[in-house]
């Protein structure tokens, strides 16, 4: 990684921003360890922990067996005992086998034990389509987590947010689920370490607009921005809101924006039904129904498993063209 000690990067990848965040946090706090499948030698399936083994040694960067339930469970135990683990699940799809440790243990420890203890750890993972990974390697399962009280949930789209939110997650006293996207790692942006940074629970208005609010998170934010550019040429001014964290959720920014624009689209790459967009759509209706000019549109992936064939996979999730099309209709 170029220049570990720089404070400002004009152009850094999302991957490197995450690496840098772990690096800086580990230098500050020697109780931070990293554990997961292939995080050490291999540097992480998507390279987010590359070189950290060399820098921090195998006591702190630990390759684990392929035992997802026990990886999360051991991280929980370590978090209860003085360490601050960053555990990595290679694919978000592996929530399936580890939801007991995530939802029944990690999320509930503080509560069940009446506030005696917490498990301050970060569970990093990545999801989403784009690599023909198929039904078991391409999901977006944030809704399961958002439906689990006790967890913080972060899904940054931009390198600067990735850096600061991960840094922040490694300081707070709440267990945090940190979901990246496999197609974001190579995307680039600026990073300013001296920025105030993205706090949890504060959405980012990436683009001011007056005609419609496009609300999203993770990779779909980049689609939203591209759509907004196209829409601008057609004289539609879209406000693009990057939620960045889903718990805490910045309801205020959403509501304020929609009260202004009176129209909204909610974008996500997850399944449609009982999803994060269902929640956000409800919130908007509940709070803005008096001013809304059109129904809120939630545009997600199809309600089917993820197909492998590239032509199917591409059209399985929202496309920029369709975002533009629906937004225009909403603004009609």
């Amino acid at each position, binding site marked *: 990684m170029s220049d570990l000690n720089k404070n400002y990067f004009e152009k850094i990848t999302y991957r490197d921003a995450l690496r840098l965040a772990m690096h800086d946090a580990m230098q500050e706090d020697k109780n931070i360890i990293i554990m997961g499948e292939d995080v050490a030698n291999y540097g992480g399936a998507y390279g987010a922990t590359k070189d950290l083994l060399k820098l921090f040694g195998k006591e702190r960067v630990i390759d684990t*067996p392929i035992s997802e339930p026990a990886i999360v*469970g051991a991280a929980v*135990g*370590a978090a209860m005992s*003085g360490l601050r683990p960053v555990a990595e699940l290679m694919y978000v799809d592996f929530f399936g086998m580890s939801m007991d440790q995530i939802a029944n243990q990690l999320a509930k420890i503080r509560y069940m034990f009446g506030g005696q203890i917490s498990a301050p750890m970060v569970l990093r993972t990545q999801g989403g389509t784009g690599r023909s990974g198929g039904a078991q390697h391409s999901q977006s399962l944030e809704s399961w987590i958002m439906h689990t009280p006790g967890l913080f949930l972060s899904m940054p789209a931009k390198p600067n947010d990735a850096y600061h939110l991960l840094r922040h997650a490694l300081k707070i006293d709440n267990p945090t689920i940190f979901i990246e996207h496999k197609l974001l790692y190579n995307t680039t942006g600026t990073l300013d370490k001296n920025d105030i940074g993205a706090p949890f629970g504060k959405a980012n208005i990436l683009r001011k607009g007056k005609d419609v609010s496009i609300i999203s998170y993770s990779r779909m934010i980049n689609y939203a921005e591209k759509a907004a550019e196209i829409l601008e040429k057609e004289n539609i001014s879209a406000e693009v809101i990057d939620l960045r964290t889903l718990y805490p959720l910045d309801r205020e920014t959403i509501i304020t924006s929609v009260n202004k624009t009176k129209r909204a689209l909610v974008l996500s790459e997850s399944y449609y039904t009982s999803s994060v967009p269902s929640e956000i759509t409800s919130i908007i209706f509940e709070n803005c129904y008096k001013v809304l000019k059109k129904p809120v549109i939630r545009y997600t992936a199809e309600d089917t498993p993820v197909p492998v064939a590239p032509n199917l996979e591409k059209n399985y999730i929202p496309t920029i063209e369709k975002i533009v099309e629906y937004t225009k209709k909403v603004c009609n």
Partner: protein
Amino acid sequence: MSNTLLPKLYKTMKRIRTFEERVSELFIKGESAGTMLHLSIGEELGPACVGTAMQENDTFTTHHRGHGIFVARGGDPNRMLAEIAGKKDGYCKGKGGSMHIADMTLGHLGANAIVGGGIPTVVGAAMSYKYLKQERVSVAFFGDGAMQQGILYESMNMASLWKLPVVFCCINNQYGMGTKIENAVGVKDFSKRAESFGLNTLHVNDLDVESAYHKSKEIIDSARKFKPGFIEIECYRFYGHARMDKSPYRDESEESEKRKLDPISFASNQMIKNNILDEADIKKIDNDIMIEMDKAMEFAINSPINDETEIFKDVYSENDPLPVSLDEKINKILNN
């Protein structure tokens, strides 16, 4: 015989049993929070020998049938019973109840209602101790049923691979709810499983608590030197699975036969036979325990219930706002 630990071990076992009897009474009096109360009557030997062999800073997790282990590790009967009653003075403010009872200051990393759920916790705790260079062992207690939870083998492998100060302790009471062990496992020799993962093993299948204590101590001491271990204590669940269960699925003759294998009367006979304590001494001990537990009972019953705002506490850290109540949410929308 002069420095025998038998009186101490006896006392621990007796305190466990008397405590559990009070739990049962609490239920009968309608003062317990629910009926999911899993008593360890008949199973006191394991908690006593392993609990005593652990050192002060050692830690542990327990399964749903964990009162006994907690008592053996110093749990305060007052706050324990108050927790089981769902009261404010309980260890978890009544929010965890019998199946989540714990005192972190005593190294109790939590009772767990998920069979096997607390097992990987000790792996992580041991990772901490090793990394932080603390000479501590972490012990996972669980039932024979948990021997069929995959997470146990994932945890054993990690403990073995990373040479962690961990002991896995199976309290094998021959049943998982109504299912006899023969109907749950292909091979009953659990030590063989643990050995195949590279653990030191100990199989206790008699009533001699002092000998079990010494053997357990060896396993724990080895674990402290980074050779993780496995202990199986065979025993018999004297009563039903939970407070309501009358065990219709097993023979009364089996029950009465097996209840004769009582580690407490065995220890008391041992003490008398070997002139360690006489009957009067034992009666005195028993009596003191009864008084202690009666007081705990009173404490629990008199403990106040929680204010409803307690629902919203302890979900997130103290620095975070409490979750907004439904009432507030709904009224806000309605008053919009």
